[in-house]
């Protein structure tokens, strides 16, 4: 592989390795794997079990197509075998495939090469390689998985006995210079250890004790602290200690010797030890980075600055995921969208230039016609026909009412069968189609396309699942499986007879955006949108832009925030197509995705903005402490106050002799049970700032857990090497601050010595929490939810981290959860990326499967609009329910809730379901 050229015009050479299976022919029946004689350790299950040389990596692989593993294939290595070729029912095996070199011309490149889990084999003290019951966390993950080597039964690999006591050892291959040269924190291991520990306990139904040996518990993400508290309640034992050595007992159990915080030596015995191994960049990825000529940090992650977090050192090459610093799934998914935004930004002029449009014939009007149902029974090679008597099913289908055509196909989904199906529909004048084959979840869209090509509305279609839910799961009972197939076909036909053509609502999209909140996140979102050519409105309630960033001195990487903010503001002001509304408030919002109408009040006047999407970036604020003598002495300061004082010269770091920082002020408390994520790093930064100006200053940080996640750990290390003192306190025994005249007296209990230490301080920095605005009005206006702590709640924490369940509304920045600047900028880019998926369309079609209200039956009781999870139902001027089809997702909750039977769900009407029940027996 090779890359030439520059931003906007790269030539990339890639090599496709042969998979020796023709993807177009493979139907994923698994015959090749079944017949393949060669067993290979299965990487997917961390080599705890075996797969074949003809294999699919895992059951949910996309595309679900098999491959032949060249180095392990007997034929490819020794020239004999070809069992797979012989048994493949579709002739998909092709040993003639060769390596293909391809050249692509692209404008941008995104690198998402990911991480490799640290291999603890060389970590001699933990004896991973020698003791069978010392496993890595990834191995443990596979042991717990239903698709794992023991089908989810919790056993230890040494002897398959169920463990009664398990120990997790944290920071294996992380925060460690001695054994692996990884000074950074891997960010994700605390959470996955908690997850695995709680799941293991659930699997064991009470017969399992779990201990986690850790240094600092780093549960910084959204809802993570709650998860940690839950694990404690569930009985997971947390031991703050780094384990030195593990010894094996004669029964293959393990003995752990460790020192407690107070210095006592303890010995505990476990049946199994899980090593929470960290993340590292694979050597081949480092090679790739060299070829791409992009810079890496000292920890081998990609180097990027905080204000353009997904850009590499080479213009036009972007990065996302764990390669760009260790991170979890939500952050990786979010960064992926951000990289897409950054990569598309400069290419926006070319958007859509390579898209091909498909012509769809106008659908025939069949409403009111007598149903003429065509039934296509699929053999799926031998996948169905090997168990179910498909001829008998087809014969039976012929006898059913309204059925006017029945056929049996070897592979109904193949292209030639699809062409034939379209012909048959026209020839036989069919107006409903039933396919008895695999599952609608994968194949319904394909068949619906064929219906459309034949001039039928695509909703005049149903499937009977006689493979995944019949032949495959009742392989031992062919007769009963055939009977069940008949039943399923009968039910599908009964439903099909009632199906009506559905129209998909067409919505025009107004290609304009409203960004609410002019902090760093909102500013970046607005700038990116306008740069991509969309009319953008940026609304800020304050009289100037910048938000909290105006009070921040520096990023974790040491970049100056004030000068960045100045540049960014200038860029925004100069940007075409971007309107900034300062001192503005939202009065009213009307409409939905593609067509919002928002009324603003600014400068005493009201104006209405029409826009297709909304990005919520309203930020958050700093908690004003009620504790630690805050407000009683001018030198007890929050982080933002201290940064502001450093910047305006009120506080001279060179003249500070004694500084104390107190962590978790207002965070991780019962009323705010979350971690504010940025404060540990912020205190460390400020401590280093003081030490750099006055190396003799005494700086003490009082903390509960130091949460300098990722490469921030290097800052923590730097602070310690510069002489900053770190002292841990317990939440039950917090430090005390007293203002005595001019002086500040801080008293804290030392854990190691077990007694009080008194410090006289010139300045006390409080790492106070980040608090949400709990913007209930705004949430209600845009029909989006808030969580318990007042943060905006995303559609899915992992899969849709910047979307709302409500279409056309997105979020970024602190409004979502506390986060550092680089994450807020990435999130802003991600929100833009998601917003552009709507804005770049002139019009959008909504699913035809929506609810409809029969107003003659509606009494206006309001149950449906209360239960609707998408707030798609409202009260009209007559007091009756009416559905907004643009918001409806077709869940049918309204139908089930109504006592008078007024709502119905198109495509899944009460009559449809009743017909299926009727046909059941």
């Amino acid at each position, binding site marked *: 592989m090779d890359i030439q050229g520059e931003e906007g015009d790269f030539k990339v050479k890639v090599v496709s390795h042969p998979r020796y299976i023709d993807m177009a022919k493979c139907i994923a029946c698994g015959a090749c794997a079944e017949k393949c004689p060669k067993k290979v350790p299965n990487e997917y299950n961390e080599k705890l079990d075996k797969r074949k040389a003809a294999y699919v990596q895992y*059951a949910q692989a996309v595309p679900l197509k098999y491959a032949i593993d060249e180095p392990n294939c007997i034929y490819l290595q020794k020239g004999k075998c070809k069992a797979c070729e012989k048994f493949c029912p579709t002739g998909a095996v092709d040993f003639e495939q060769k390596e293909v070199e391809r050249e692509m011309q692209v404008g941008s490149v995104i690198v998402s090469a990911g991480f490799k889990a640290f291999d603890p084999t060389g970590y001699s003290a933990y004896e991973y390689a020698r003791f069978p019951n010392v496993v890595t966390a990834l191995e443990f993950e596979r042991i717990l998985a239903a698709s794992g080597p023991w089908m989810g039964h919790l056993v230890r690999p040494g002897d398959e006995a169920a463990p009664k006591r398990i120990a997790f050892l944290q920071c294996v291959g992380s925060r460690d210079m001695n054994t692996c040269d990884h000074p950074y924190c891997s960010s994700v291991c605390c959470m996955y250890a908690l997850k695995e520990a709680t799941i293991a306990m659930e699997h064991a139904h009470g017969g399992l004790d779990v201990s986690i040996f850790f240094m600092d518990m780093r549960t910084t993400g959204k809802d993570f602290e709650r998860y940690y508290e839950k694990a404690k309640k569930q009985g997971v034992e947390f031991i703050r200690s780094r384990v030195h050595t593990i010894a094996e007992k004669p029964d293959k159990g393990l003995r752990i010797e460790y020192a407690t915080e107070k210095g006592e030596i303890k010995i505990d015995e476990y049946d199994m030890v899980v090593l929470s191994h960290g993340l590292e960049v694979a050597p081949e990825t480092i090679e790739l980075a060299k070829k791409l000529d992009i810079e890496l940090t000292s920890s081998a992650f990609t180097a990027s600055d905080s204000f353009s977090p997904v850009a590499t050192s080479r213009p036009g090459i972007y990065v996302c995921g764990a390669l760009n610093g260790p991170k979890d799934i939500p952050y990786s998914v979010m960064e992926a969208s951000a990289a897409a935004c950054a990569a598309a930004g400069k290419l926006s002029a070319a958007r859509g230039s390579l898209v091909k449009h498909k012509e769809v014939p106008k659908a025939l009007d069949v409403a009111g016609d007598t149903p003429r149902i065509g039934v296509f029974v699929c053999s799926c090679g031998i996948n169905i026909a090997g168990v179910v008597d498909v001829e008998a099913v087809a014969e039976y289908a012929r006898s059913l009412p309204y059925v006017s055509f029945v056929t049996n196909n070897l592979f109904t989904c193949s292209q030639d069968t699809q062409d034939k199906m379209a012909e048959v529909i026209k020839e036989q004048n069919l107006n409903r189609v039933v396919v008895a084959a695999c599952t609608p979840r994968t194949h319904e869209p394909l068949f619906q396309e064929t219906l459309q090509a034949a001039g039928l509305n695509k909703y005049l279609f149903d499937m009977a699942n006689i493979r995944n839910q019949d032949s495959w*799961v009742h392989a031992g009972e062919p007769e009963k499986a055939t009977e069940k197939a008949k039943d399923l076909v009968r039910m599908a036909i009964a439903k099909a007879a009632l199906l009506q053509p559905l129209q998909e609502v067409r919505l025009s999209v107004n290609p304009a955006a409203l960004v609410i909140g002019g902090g760093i996140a909102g500013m970046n979102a607005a700038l990116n949108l306008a740069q991509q050519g969309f009319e953008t409105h940026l609304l800020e309630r304050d009289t100037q832009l910048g938000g909290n960033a105006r009070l921040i001195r520096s990023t974790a990487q040491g970049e100056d925030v004030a000068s960045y903010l100045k540049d960014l503001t200038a860029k925004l002001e100069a940007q075409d197509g971007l309107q900034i509304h300062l001192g503005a408030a939202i009065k009213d919002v009307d409409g939905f995705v593609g067509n919002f109408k928002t009324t603003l009040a600014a400068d005493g006047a009201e104006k209405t903005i029409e826009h297709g999407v909304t990005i919520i970036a309203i930020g958050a604020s700093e908690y004003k402490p009620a504790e630690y003598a805050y407000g009683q002495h001018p030198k007890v300061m929050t982080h933002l106050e201290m940064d502001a004082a450093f910047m305006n010269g009120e506080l001279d770091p060179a003249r500070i002799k004694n500084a104390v920082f107190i962590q978790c002020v207002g965070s991780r408390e019962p009323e705010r049970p979350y971690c504010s994520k940025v404060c540990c790093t912020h205190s460390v930064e400020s401590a280093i700032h003081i030490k750099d100006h006055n190396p003799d200053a005494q700086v003490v940080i009082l903390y509960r857990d130091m949460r300098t996640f990722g490469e921030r750990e290097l800052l923590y290390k730097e602070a310690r090497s510069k002489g900053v003192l770190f002292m841990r306190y317990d939440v039950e025994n917090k430090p005390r601050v007293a203002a005595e005249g001019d002086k500040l007296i801080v008293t804290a209990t030392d854990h190691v010595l077990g007694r009080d230490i008194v410090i006289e301080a010139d300045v006390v920095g409080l790492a106070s929490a980040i608090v949400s605005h709990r913007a209930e009005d705004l949430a209600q206006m845009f029909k989006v939810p808030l969580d318990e702590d007042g943060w905006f709640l995303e559609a899915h924490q992992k899969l849709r981290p910047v979307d709302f369940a409500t279409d056309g509304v997105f979020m970024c920045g602190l409004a979502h959860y506390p986060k550092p600047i680089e994450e807020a900028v990435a999130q802003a880019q991600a929100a833009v990326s998601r917003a552009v998926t709507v804005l770049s369309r002139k019009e959008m079609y909504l699913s035809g499967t929506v609810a409809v209200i029969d107003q003659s039956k509606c009494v206006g009781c309001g149950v449906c609009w209360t239960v609707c999870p998408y707030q798609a139902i409202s009260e009209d001027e007559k007091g009756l329910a009416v559905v907004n089809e643009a918001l409806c997702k077709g*869940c049918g909750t309204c139908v089930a809730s109504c006592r008078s039977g007024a709502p119905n769900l198109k495509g899944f009407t009460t009559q449809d379901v009743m017909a299926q*029940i009727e046909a*059941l027996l």
Partner: protein
Amino acid sequence: MSDTSNFQPRIAAFLCNWCSYGAADLAGVSRLQYPPLVQTIRIPCTGRMSPKFILQAFRKGVDGVWVSG
């Protein structure tokens, strides 16, 4: 009902398209075997599930109903 060993009950399963129906498909992919007594009716979401469907199924003579989200 003295002899239940040969009895083949009929069970109506109302499965949510996004959850249990997917699990049922995946059970197929993994070839996990279970008795062929369950007839599936796919519903878009368990929210669609109405008590009427359960009663109607029993009225039609099924021996059991399984609702899974």
